[in-house]
């Protein structure tokens, strides 16, 4: 977007994680190997040595999951306003502008229609680089519309979540997005259309405690952090050490809150099979 002013460049972006490793070499936090960034990219940002799943940009996720050329983006022009006039150390408006520049998108989720091995789906993919994938009014509205479009078009819904939770800068309006999205999902479920939720690293707070944990089928990427409350908050409460692997995808699978952990390279094939098994049956 061309309308950013120069002064925006001075914003401190250190807290926003970049989704794509930059530079020629990338150090793997999983195995500490120094990886050729090109090779890592070719492997969809999964470490070829230890299978550590690096973040993957939303555009590349859509490419990986959907049939080529099938994605039609929806609601790309919905933008956050600053309903509370919120300001902490920075103005919310400035944070939004900085996030738009870093992510190249209008807010923290991209949505649209596409196909997976020919099956039409309504899809959403979180953009974690945009203010930690936090859910404010725009994310809530776009996710709600995914479920509403799925209902209208009799298509399954699919959301890849990656979020730190609700967006504090929109106060209670963010909180209400949890109810809005869950209510829309309820309507989809009533007519028997499946919703598959894929949890990426991390899926926490208000996103976890609404549509992300409400999948008819819930998949997760290996070792994804999935939680209601953050480990630091819990540690402050209980003042004890947390169990090993606490709040990781494998831990949730053991406790019965996930259906399956799926390697990134197998996600498209797994979704295709699930959609054939659970999606609307062809009229004969």
């Amino acid at each position, binding site marked *: 977007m061309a309308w950013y002013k120069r002064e925006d460049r001075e914003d401190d972006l250190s807290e926003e994680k970049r989704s794509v490793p930059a530079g020629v070499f990338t150090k793997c936090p999983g195995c500490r190997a120094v990886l050729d960034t090109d090779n890592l990219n070719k492997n969809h940002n999964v470490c070829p040595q230890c299978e550590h799943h690096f973040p993957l940009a939303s555009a590349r996720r859509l490419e990986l999951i959907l049939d080529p050329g099938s994605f039609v983006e929806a609601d790309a022009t919905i933008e956050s306003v600053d309903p509370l006039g919120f300001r902490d150390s920075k103005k919310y408006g400035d944070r939004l502008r900085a996030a738009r520049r870093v992510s190249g998108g209008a807010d923290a989720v991209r949505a649209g229609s596409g196909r997976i091995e020919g099956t039409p789906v309504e899809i959403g993919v979180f953009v974690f680089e945009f203010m930690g994938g936090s859910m404010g009014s725009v994310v809530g509205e776009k996710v709600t519309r995914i479920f509403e479009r799925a209902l209208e078009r009799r298509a399954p819904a699919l959301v890849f979540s990656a979020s730190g939770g609700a967006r504090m800068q929109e106060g*209670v309006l963010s909180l*209400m997005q949890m*109810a809005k999205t869950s209510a829309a999902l*309820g309507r989809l479920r009533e007519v028997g259309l499946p919703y598959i939720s894929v949890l990426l690293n991390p899926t926490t707070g*208000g996103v*976890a405690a609404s549509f992300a944990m409400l999948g008819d089928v819930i998949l997760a990427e290996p070792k994804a952090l999935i939680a*209601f409350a953050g480990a630091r908050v819990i540690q402050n*409460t*209980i003042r004890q050490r947390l169990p090993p692997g606490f709040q990781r995808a494998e831990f949730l699978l053991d406790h019965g809150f996930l259906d399956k952990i799926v390697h990134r390279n197998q996600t498209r094939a797994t979704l295709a099979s699930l959609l054939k098994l659970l999606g609307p049956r062809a009229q004969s």
Partner: protein
Amino acid sequence: MAQTAAPLVRAGDTPMLDFERPVVELERKIEELVRVSGGATELHPQIALLGARARELQQKIFAELTPWQKVQLSRHPARPYTLDYIERLVPDFIELHGDRRFADDPAVVGGFGTFAGMPVLVVGHQKGRSTKEKVQRNFGQPKPEGYRKAQRLMELAARTRRPILCLIDTQGAYPGVDAEERGQAEAIATSLEIMAGLPVPIVCAVIGEGGSGGALALGVANRILMLEYATYSVISPEGCASILWRDDGKKAEAAAAMKMTATDLLRLGVVDEVVPEAPGGAHRDHDLSARNLGEALRRHLAELLLMAPEALRNDRYQKFRHMGAFVESGDKAAPTPA
């Protein structure tokens, strides 16, 4: 959320907030005068004058409360809790226990009783009054079994066509290892979806602290009421301050910035009505505050009882469907109130 208790000045056994002190001290003086006067009429004009001054002072202080002071009032240790309201509004209440899966969570109470002449379900968060009860009720912070108990009772109310009243008063769902292991996020999420689809009237009232998802899990209602000094927010001011300001000390700033008071939420279109509390706060007169709340609940319930089951579901859907503020494709006007 790690929260520091409200700074209390203890005088005798009445806990009080620092800004309540001038009024309470004046009232003590009046009591003392009444006591020593022993009915002597020459002191009466002086007592009446002091009484008027106390009321005036209280009005002045309460007219200028900051958002942070309202947060403190919403957490006041003498504030009426869910069971205090139930005792006054639903005298034949029968509490029902357990989620039928794991345990009974004392941080959520639920049961049936007669309200406004008809059987209703009442569900609410419950804090403890004594130290022992505080611990037993986990400081009003539910675990997944609390939400699953609420779901079970609400589904029973739906099958038997009983209206539902929810009283919200929690600093948040419990952030603990056991709660996470048993699916705190799933429990809250499922409550949201279930409540959205129930074919009976639901009225909720935030009576104290409305803390985040743990509060909202009892809040997907046709009507949302809020007591005058209750608060409702996406995160506690302490949590917001430590994340956005990186300084817990900025809690008053965070409380103001998040717009979490009853009047803020009325302006944002989230809350339907602000219910007046007793002068000086609900804790100063439990009976009066309960009467005010009962009157408002009765009025909203009466309106909803005229609606068919499908209309109630639709009404609730549309209510939440319209919450949020954004602009779309060049349209520069914000659709939500400023």
